[in-house]
């Protein structure tokens, strides 16, 4: 199922990453790796620095310190728009679909970095197979979809580029529990297909089920880390979350 595209077999390595906005430290010294086929969760309460970490690693906000490598490549000078060509897909927080374009156009734009040829059509079919509802709505404007459908569209769009590593920022945000389960199911399926995942989430349970390893962030630092199964039973996760 997976095609050995660009970036296949590469490990994402983040070391001592720091992010500052003005004078405020959002992330201080976060390190982790995502090996090929591994799925890693980054969880924590609001304002813990999860999204900042992800955005810094994508190059969407400047990194105050630290290093991000993908395989043997230093990503320091790689602009955000070039990440997709290295095999890194990104699903931004709050979905960010192109509201005035049709569902199909949104998906095809996911393959912008490639040609719009037969291969893109084949990827389109794969995405429709993964999310049948998108196939039914292919002609609708993306802005007219429900929140859950938009989230599927955002994930589908990222998959169109055939990434080997998928970064997801809070895919469960604002979704009903039922839809959260659907998203979780999808993520497990992608994981089983061999895609590497980096999942930033507030929803800890979703993350524990969709990933193999997890980090819990608190005030911009890693408070806990371990396998998802271990953390699931760890009562400290709860106290970190609630700031107790």
């Amino acid at each position, binding site marked *: 199922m997976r095609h050995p595209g660009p970036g296949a077999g590469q490990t994402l390595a983040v070391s001592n990453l720091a992010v500052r906005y003005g004078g405020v430290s959002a992330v201080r010294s976060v390190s982790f790796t995502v090996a090929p086929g591994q799925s890693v969760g980054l969880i924590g309460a*609001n304002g813990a620095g999860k999204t900042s970490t992800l955005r810094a690693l994508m190059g969407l906000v400047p990194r105050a310190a630290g290093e991000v490598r993908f395989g043997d490549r230093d990503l320091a000078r790689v602009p955000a728009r070039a990440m997709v060509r290295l095999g890194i897909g990104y699903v931004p927080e709050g979905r960010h679909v192109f509201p005035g374009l049709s569902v199909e156009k949104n998906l095809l734009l996911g393959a912008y970095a490639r040609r719009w040829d037969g291969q893109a059509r084949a990827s389109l079919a794969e995405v429709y197979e993964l999310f049948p509802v998108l196939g039914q709505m292919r002609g609708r404007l993306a802005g007219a979809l429900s929140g859950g459908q938009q989230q599927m569209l955002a994930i589908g769009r990222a998959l169109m580029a055939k990434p080997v590593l998928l970064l997801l920022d809070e895919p469960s945000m604002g979704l009903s529990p039922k839809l959260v389960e659907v998203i979780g199911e999808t993520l497990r399926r992608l994981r089983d297909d061999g895609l590497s995942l980096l999942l930033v989430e507030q929803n800890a349970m979703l993350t524990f089920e969709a990933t193999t390893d997890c980090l819990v962030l608190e005030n911009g630092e890693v408070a806990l880390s371990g396998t998802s199964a271990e953390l*699931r039973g760890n009562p400290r996760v709860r106290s970190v979350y609630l700031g107790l």
Partner: protein
Amino acid sequence: MSRLPALSPPWSLWSPGRARAGGLVVLAVAAWLLPYRLNIYWISVADTAILFALLAVGMGLVMGIAGQVNLAQIAFFGVGAYATAILTTRDGFGFWTAGALAMLAAVIAGLVVGLPALRIQSHYLGIVTLGLAVAFIDWITNAPITGGDSGISGIPTPPLFGIDLASQYLYYYLELIVFAGGLAFGLFIVRTPLGRRMRAMRDDPLAASAVGVEIRMLRMAAFVLASVYGGAAGVLYAGLVHYIAPETFSIADMFLLLAMVIIGGRQSLAGCVIGAIGLTVVQQELINLAAYAQLGYGLVVVAVVVFAPAGLVGIPGRAAAWYRRWRGHTGRAAALEPFRPLPAAPPSPGSAGGALLEVAGLVMRFRGVTAIDDVSLTVREGEILGIVGPNGSGKTTLFNVISGLYRPTAGTVSLGGRVISGAGPHRICQLGVARTFQHLRLFGNLTVADNMLVPLDRTRTWWSWRYIGWPPGVWRHDRELKWRAASLLGCFGLAQFAGLLPGSLPYGIQRRLELARAMASSPRLLLLDEPAAGLNGEERSQLAAIVRSIRDSGVTVVLIEHNMGLVMSLCERVIVLDSGTVIAEGVPAQVARDPAVLEAYLGKSALPAPHATEASP
């Protein structure tokens, strides 16, 4: 704490105010003596320059101070000039009577042009005002009453106690006096409540309306002011040249006027004047190379916009800041002082514990997305209520509805038994609801003290008639406000920052300033949206003390917060929102154990699960 801006030492004889006053005296004397050094050609240039300066002051007030794009200033100028010309030559009015009526006509034009600003802003307003200017030009070029292309000649010289104003030299003094009066009035406005509100509206209309500024009235007032200056310049122009024709009031001249204001510095009246005089003189010097002059000022406008948005007057300040940074700043750094508890309110009998705010059946939908779904809650007088919930659960939307930024789709909000939903944010603020914003919304180009002065002033916009009727009253009111601002800043420990811009302060201090600004409007109910975001532990505990003191002074507090530690220690009652509905309510400790809450935060089956092993297929 080492990168704080420097303060000038208090014992210096060279305070900026004194230096400025001295400079003004020197300029006034120089302006008075100037005609003795000028030949007849250059005195006419000077006469023109003053008129442009007067127009530019009007432009500065509406665009630079109030932030309203106005490309119809040339039409106000034209209305003043044409009304004077028509009333004197056709209807036989005396010059000054005609002039007074012409000013009235200009004000009416100002109201008409300002009307669209109630509905539209920025580029839309730009094209509408420009379109109305084109319409005016079309009218004067075609109407029989304006003499069409050939214009109107034979406008009389204004009589003035036997002084022969036909002399361009003596006319200079008439213009100079009117201009000085106009500039002084403009500066008075800028530095007192009316101008301060306009600047606040320019920096952030949303935050301004949330601290009680009546945006619509103020926009109209700004256009009327611009039209007064434009009309006055028109009247003087008619009396100066005795002959007017449409070519003086072209779109090209409008853009020239705009260039003057931008190059000089639109946010400073002095800058507008410098730009107007400078560009007039340069144009005269290059009169035979008009196209090169145009090329030059076009390029300068682009360069100013890209590299020095504050215009020429902004350059010395930037250079000084650069120099200070280069030298490594000397001078004393401003420091945050401890918060002094607010005077506690005597417990008011009866009302304590009663409902202050009631939200009933509230629904808020945006294009089909339901952000708030049938929320009902009560805030009791004198409590600290926490609102918590995961991201996207509708907390900030709830605040936006309560404070009037959104009109609810259904349901009501009432304050002290009175329905406030549907009223504008300024009205709700006037009724006693103040708020802070999740992402700071301070007035960036106003000093810390000015940020406080805007909400402290509880007068309505109508009150501003005193600017014409009784200016000393305005001045006295302003002094009293300043005194109160100083005392409130002292309470919040911010006194040393009074003269600085908020953007130059550390984040934690900006947060505290926004809290102080909200308190400046003397609210009954204070809404805090994530007040602890970005604060360190020390600042968080200071915040808790401040919020408690605010409550003890008789203000009810509702806060949205993610830091549960803070919520636990501060709030007496907590309401939990999830997906736009209330899922739990109660004392903090109880809410934190509520399974529904844990699920909202952590996801389904969040309790450290007995089935810790892999449960998924």
